[in-house]
């Protein structure tokens, strides 16, 4: 069992570890829907990677950044509200991605694997790539932590205090795109947001400082991956959804504790 599950477990843990602090930023900055839109767009990246025969992770990162830039540009106009815009972009890119994947003639594409992830299909090369990516994201987060947190608390104060607000915001987008690229094969585009948001939301009630919240979110995510894989193994349920259900169960458990505000 362990030999079979080891790559899946390690891949899931890498994603959950990074999803802790990244999810905290998504929650603090109310970017859940934004992240979801990028994740939907990632499917288009996957289709492009197949069509052009380029690296999957690279294609997804590029597409996510392009969508992020387009969204920032589109949000300058005021006629269409932000959430409407996100809804349009999310589902248009998802639809385009599904069509593009269905047009692939050369390879048989497992659409479900992209939508809901297929953790059991990851190989050791994926595991290495995921942990490499996780190390990069965590290092950048640690290095720019004060700047990232400063612009989250108050952008104007941060700017006056000499923090490069625009650059820091772009870094956050890049990190989110990297995470989504890593998550597409493991939890799938439809479930990425849940792995970002649920552990962070659960951590909120248990923490007094931003750092605590990020760490506890990681811990909840890691636990959810373990529980989800176990559930999937014994009950033969799909892996991605099992992990999300486990995370949700942990979130509900945190509600039983009194808040520390």
């Amino acid at each position, binding site marked *: 069992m362990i030999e079979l599950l080891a790559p899946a477990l390690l891949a899931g843990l890498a994603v959950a570890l990074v999803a802790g602090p990244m999810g905290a930023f998504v929650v603090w900055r109310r970017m859940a829907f934004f992240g979801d839109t990028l994740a939907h767009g990632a499917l288009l990246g996957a289709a492009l990677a197949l069509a052009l025969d380029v690296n999957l992770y690279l294609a997804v990162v590029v597409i996510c950044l392009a969508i992020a830039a387009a969204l920032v540009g589109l949000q300058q106009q005021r006629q269409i509200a932000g959430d409407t815009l996100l809804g349009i972009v999310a589902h248009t890119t998802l639809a385009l991605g599904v069509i593009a994947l269905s047009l692939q003639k050369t390879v048989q594409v497992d659409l479900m694997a992209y939508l809901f992830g297929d953790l059991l299909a990851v190989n050791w090369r994926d595991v290495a790539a995921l942990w490499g990516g996780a190390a990069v994201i965590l290092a950048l987060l640690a290095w720019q932590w004060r700047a990232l947190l400063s612009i989250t608390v108050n952008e104007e*104060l941060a*700017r006056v205090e000499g923090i490069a607000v625009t650059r820091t915001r772009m870094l956050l987008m890049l990190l989110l795109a990297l995470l989504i690229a890593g998550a597409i094969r493991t939890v799938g585009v439809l479930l990425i947001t849940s792995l970002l948001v649920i552990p962070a939301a659960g951590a909120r009630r248990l923490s007094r400082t931003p750092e605590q*919240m990020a760490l506890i979110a990681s811990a909840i995510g890691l636990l959810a991956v373990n529980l989800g894989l176990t559930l999937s193994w014994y009950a033969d349920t799909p892996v991605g959804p099992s992990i999300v259900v486990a995370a949700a169960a942990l979130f509900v458990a945190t509600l039983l504790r009194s808040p520390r505000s």
Partner: protein
Amino acid sequence: MTAPLVTVEEVALSLGGHPVLEDVSLTLEPGRITTLIGPNGAGKSTLARLILGLMQPDRGRIRRRTGLRVGYMPQRLSVDESLPLTVDRFLWLGAPGRTRTRREALARTGVAHLRQRPVRQLSGGELQRVLLARALLRQPDLLVLDEPAQGVDVAGQDALYGLLNEVRDQRGCGILLISHDLHLVMARTDQVVCLHHHVCCSGTPEAVSRDPSYQRLFGLPGPATNLAVYTHDHDHDHGLSGGVSGDVSSDVSSDGHGDHEHHHHGDHHD
């Protein structure tokens, strides 16, 4: 004479199609407390934000001394409920350093006991004191404080102005203050700029409080009566020429300055 910290030259700005600032010029010097006064919506916060570089003027120029370190206390600040943040972590964001320096800064603003409390749970006045502590922790050359005294209790307000004077003397930093409390402004600051989209008048507190445009803007006898004890002149006539007639010997002031030559050193822009 050291170089000015900031020079604002003939700045104009419109927001949402309405002119908010027109032909505004002023200079912020080190070691001087400059106060912006003016009615709600006069453009005080907007001018402060221009000076901070948070907005750009439509016309005119704002020059900041190179390497200027700024401490800023915004008029409002709210922390999202989803973000757990203690006062200590909040201060760390502005000035990472030893815990001891944060504890000392909080003690100076009288809220040392709040260090481990969540920012969201602070009362209005407590939050103001924490914001001031963060601004001070920056070791600023220029402090920009947008209505620092709002919600601060009476004893605290007096202490606040005392602290600002102390900071100015110790660090020699310049302070730009926005305030509605004319009483304290006139008593405890060095230069007053009376703003109503344009600079109505500016100069020493004595000069401004005598200025007809100031008196028009704030309405006599209203605030001026309360100010009498600081401004010596409640029973003078105020000719539109700007001269002050009346018997100086009837001055109710007890501060013994008697320096009436201060009159109208201020610039008139209207």
